[in-house]
C-alpha cells in the first residue's frame, strides 16, 4: 500500500478542520489500520475504537504502533473518555512527539476538561503547552486559561493573564467580557466596568460581535444601576441596538435609570414600548410592573390599577404555561424531543444538538440548554442510549452464536461416524504396501527390460497366440506351406517385439507417473486422516472453547445492560431535575411579581378608599 497519502489521523482527529495544518504524506502499512481510519473519517468513533483495539490485540497494526496509540487517545477523547485519553497522551507526549501536535493535544484536552467542569485538571493540561499555538488556537487558549482561573474565582490571576494579550480581536473581546462580568459579580465594579466598557465601545463588523457588544453594554448598564449610578447607566444602555437580542433588557434598564432620577414620564417611553414584545422575555415581564409603578408615581392611580390587574393576569397565565412545561419535562418528553431531532450518528464529544425543537419548555430553557452543564450531560445521556442499543444488538448476535454452535455440534455428531467409516474402509497401509510391491516390480521390469510385462492386453493376447502357434509341431514339417507359415510367424513376432520395445520407454514413464500420483494421493489421504483425527479431538474442544467464551460474555452483557439502563435513568433524572428547577425558579419569580402587583394594587385601593373617606 506504499505511497498512500492521507492526513495524519491523530492530528486530523484532534484538530478542528480550520486548525489542521498540511501534514506530510503517510504510508499505510496495513489494511486493518486503514479500515479503522475508514470508520474514523466517517466519525463513527465508537466502531473505529472497537476495531482499533481489536486489531491491536491481534497484532494487526504493528506497522503503525505509535500512530495507532495516538489515534486511540484521540478516539477516547471523542468517545468522552477524557481520563483514558489523558493517560495515553501523558505517556505518549511527555517527552517525545511532534511538539506542535503535542501542544494542540494538550489544548484540546484542556478544553474538554473545562467543558466537563474539571477546572483544576484543565489548568494542568494548559500548563503542559510549551510553545505558542497557531494564532487562532492561541487566542482561544488564552481565553480558556482566563476562564479556567475565573471559574476557580482567581480573578487577579485572570486579569493578569489577559493583560499583555495582543491577539485576535474576537477572542480577546470574549475574554474581556467574561472577566468583566466575573469581577462585577465578585464586587469589584471598577475593574469590571473598565473591561466591559472596552468591549461595549469596540468596533464590530459581524452580528456575533455586535451582539457581544450589546451584551457588554447591558451588563455594564445594570451594574451601574445596581450600584445606584443611574446617570452612568443611561448612556451605556443607549449604546445597545434597538432591535437585537439585548434590546428588551436595555429598554427596561433605561427606564429604571430615568425612574431613579424621578423622570417617570420619560421612563414610560421605553417601558410602554416593551409591552408589545414577547412576554417570555423576563425584561418584558418586569415592564408589566414597571409601567403601573411609573403611572402610580405620576398620580395616575386608575391607570396604574388597570395595568396591575393586567399584569397579574399575564403572570398567572405565564405561570400556568410554566406548569405545563414542567409536566412535560417530568413525563420525560423534553429529553425525548431533544434526541428525536438528533441525526442519529454514533456518539462522542464533537456531537452537539444540531437543531433545537421548538417546544414550549425549550423556549423557557434556552439559557440552560446552551450551557456546558446541560450539553455535556445530554451527550452522556445520548452516549448511554447508544451503548444500550449497541449491547442489545450484541445480545441478539450472541443468541445466534449459541445457536450456530449447537448446529455445528449436531452436524459434527452426525458426520463423524460416516467419516470414521470411510477412513476405516480405506486401508491406506495396505494400499501403500501394494504400491511398494508394484514399484519394485516396475524396477525389475526396467532392469530386465521386460517389455512384455508392460504390453497391452491385446498385445499380450497376440504374443501368446504367436507363441502358441510357433510351438505347433506342424511348422516343423518339410513342406513349402509350413516354411512359409513359419516365416510369417517370425515376422509377426519380430513386429510385435519391435512395437513393444518402441513403446517400452513411454510405458515405463506412464507407470512411474501413476506411481507418483498414487504416492501423492496416499499422502493426501494420510493428511486427511490426520485432520480428521485432529478434528475428532479438537472439534469438541474448539466448540467447547467458543461455548465457554460465550458463557463468560453473556452475564457481563446482561450486567452492563442493567447498569447502562440504571445510569441512563439517573443521567436523565439529572437533566430533568436541573430543567425543572430552572423552570420552578422562573415560576417563583412569576409568583413574586404577582404578590408585588397585588400588594401595589391593594395600596392603590387603600389610598383611594382613604381619599373617599377623607376627601
Amino acid at each position, binding site marked *: *500500500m506504499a505511497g*498512500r497519502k*492521507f*492526513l495524519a489521523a491523530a492530528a486530523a482527529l484532534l484538530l478542528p478542520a480550520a486548525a489542521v495544518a498540511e501534514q506530510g504524506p503517510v504510508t*499505510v502499512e496495513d*489494511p486493518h489500520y*486503514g*479500515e479503522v*481510519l*475508514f*470508520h474514523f*473519517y466517517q466519525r463513527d468513533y*465508537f466502531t473505529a*475504537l*472497537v476495531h482499533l*483495539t*481489536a486489531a491491536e490485540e491481534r497484532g494487526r497494526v504493528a506497522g503503525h504502533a505509535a500512530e495507532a496509540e495516538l489515534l486511540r487517545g484521540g478516539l477516547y477523547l471523542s468517545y468522552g*473518555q477524557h481520563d483514558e485519553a489523558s493517560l495515553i497522551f501523558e505517556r505518549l507526549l511527555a517527552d517525545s512527539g511532534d511538539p506542535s501536535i503535542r501542544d494542540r493535544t494538550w489544548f484540546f484536552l484542556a478544553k474538554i476538561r473545562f467543558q*466537563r*467542569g474539571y477546572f483544576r485538571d484543565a489548568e494542568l493540561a494548559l500548563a503542559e503547552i510549551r510553545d505558542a499555538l497557531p494564532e487562532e488556537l492561541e487566542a482561544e487558549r488564552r481565553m480558556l486559561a482566563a476562564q479556567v482561573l475565573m471559574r476557580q474565582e482567581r480573578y487577579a490571576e485572570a486579569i493578569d493573564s489577559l493583560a499583555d494579550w495582543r491577539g485576535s480581536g474576537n477572542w480577546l473581546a470574549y475574554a474581556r467580557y467574561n472577566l468583566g*462580568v*466575573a469581577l462585577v459579580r465578585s464586587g469589584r465594579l471598577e475593574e469590571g466596568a473598565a473591561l466591559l466598557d472596552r468591549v461595549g465601545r469596540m468596533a464590530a463588523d459581524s452580528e456575533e460581535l455586535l451582539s457581544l457588544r450589546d451584551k457588554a453594554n*447591558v451588563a455594564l448598564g*445594570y451594574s451601574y*444601576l*445596581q450600584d445606584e449610578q443611574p446617570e452612568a447607566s443611561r448612556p451605556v444602555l443607549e449604546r445597545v441596538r434597538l432591535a437585537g437580542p439585548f434590546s428588551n*433588557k436595555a429598554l427596561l434598564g433605561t427606564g*429604571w435609570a430615568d425612574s431613579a432620577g424621578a423622570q417617570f414620564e420619560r421612563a414610560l417611553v421605553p417601558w410602554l414600548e416593551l409591552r408589545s414584545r414577547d412576554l417570555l422575555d*423576563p*425584561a418584558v415581564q418586569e415592564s408589566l*410592573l414597571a409601567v403601573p409603578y411609573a403611572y*402610580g408615581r405620576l398620580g395616575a392611580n386608575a391607570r396604574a390599577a388597570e395595568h396591575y390587574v393586567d399584569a397579574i393576569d399575564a403572570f398567572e397565565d405565564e405561570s400556568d404555561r410554566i406548569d405545563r412545561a414542567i409536566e412535560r419535562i417530568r413525563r420525560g418528553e423534553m429529553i425525548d424531543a431533544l434526541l428525536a431531532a438528533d441525526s442519529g450518528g454514533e456518539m462522542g464529544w464533537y456531537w452537539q444538538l444540531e437543531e433545537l425543537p421548538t417546544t414550549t419548555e425549550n423556549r423557557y430553557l434556552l*439559557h440552560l440548554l446552551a*450551557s456546558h*452543564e446541560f450539553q455535556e*450531560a445530554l451527550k*452522556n445521556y445520548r*452516549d*448511554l442510549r447508544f*451503548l444500550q442499543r*449497541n449491547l442489545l444488538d*450484541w445480545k441478539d448476535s450472541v443468541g445466534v452464536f449459541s445457536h450456530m*454452535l449447537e448446529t455445528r455440534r449436531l452436524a459434527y455428531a452426525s458426520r463423524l461416524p460416516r467419516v470414521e467409516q470411510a477412513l476405516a474402509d480405506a486401508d491406506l497401509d495396505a494400499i501403500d504396501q501394494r504400491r511398494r510391491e508394484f514399484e519394485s516390480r516396475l524396477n525389475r521390469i526396467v532392469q530386465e527390460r521386460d517389455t512384455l510385462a508392460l504390453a497391452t492386453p491385446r498385445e499380450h493376447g497376440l504374443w501368446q497366440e504367436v507363441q502358441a502357434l510357433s510351438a505347433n509341431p506342424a511348422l516343423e514339417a518339410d513342406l513349402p506351406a509350413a516354411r512359409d507359415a513359419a516365416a510369417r510367424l517370425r515376422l509377426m513376432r519380430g513386429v510385435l517385439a519391435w512395437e513393444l520395445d518402441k513403446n517400452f520407454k513411454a510405458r515405463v514413464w506412464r507407470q512411474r507417473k501413476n506411481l507418483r500420483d498414487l504416492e501423492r494421493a496416499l499422502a493426501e489421504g494420510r493428511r486427511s486422516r490426520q485432520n480428521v483425527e485432529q478434528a475428532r479431538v479438537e472439534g469438541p474442544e474448539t466448540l467447547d472453547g*467458543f461455548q465457554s*467464551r460465550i458463557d463468560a*460474555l453473556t452475564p457481563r452483557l446482561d450486567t*452492563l445492560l442493567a*447498569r447502562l439502563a440504571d*445510569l441512563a435513568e*439517573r443521567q436523565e433524572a*439529572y437533566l430533568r431535575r*436541573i430543567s425543572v*428547577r*430552572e423552570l420552578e*425558579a422562573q415560576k417563583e*419569580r412569576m409568583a*413574586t411579581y404577582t404578590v*408585588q402587583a397585588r400588594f*401595589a394594587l391593594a*395600596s392603590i385601593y387603600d389610598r383611594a378608599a382613604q381619599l373617599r373617606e377623607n376627601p
Partner: protein
Amino acid sequence: MKRLLFPLLLLVITGINAQVLSAGAAGDVRADDQAADEEEFRALDQQVQSLKKEVLDLNRELFLLEEDLLFPANSQVAMFVSLDVGTFFDVESVSLELNGKEVAHYLYTEREAEALRRGGVHRIHVSNLKVGEHELVAFFSGKGPHGRDYRRGADVMFDKGIGAKYMELQISDREHKQQPGFLITEWE
C-alpha cells in the same frame, strides 16, 4: 408607596442582573444549587466514563469472538478497497466475484467515498476459502474529471495457503495517468 416599591425595584434589578450577568449558567438558579449540580454532574460523568470503558472492552471481545467463530484464521479471506488517485475521482460502486460467484456489490455513500479519499480502507468482503487456487474478478465504477464515467475490471488468480489471507484492491491512477485502474496487493 415608596416603601413598598423600593424592594420591587431592587428585586427587578437584581433579578435581571443575575440573568444578564451570568456567563454560562442558568439564570434564576442559585449559585449553591449550581455548585451541587456541578458536583453531581462530575460524579455521574465519572461513572459514565468507567461504564463506557467496560462496554468498549466487552465490544472488543464480542467482535473478536464473532470473527473467530465466523471466519476462523485458517480459512479467512478478507478483501479491502482503497483509493489512491491524484486527480479527483468519485468512486460509486465496487463489485467482486469469487470463483465465478458474485460475493459483494457495494454502493458508496458520499461520506464513505470521502473516507476512502482521505486514506480509509474499506473491508468490503470477508469469507472462508479452502487452501488452493482461487479466482477473483473485481469491477469498480465511478466518475472521473469532467463527469466522465469509468468502469474498470481486474482478474487475478491467487493462492490461499493455511492462515488468513488479505487482498487489497486499490483504485489507483498511478500506472496510467488520469486513468484509474485496479492495483491488487496480497498479504498472508
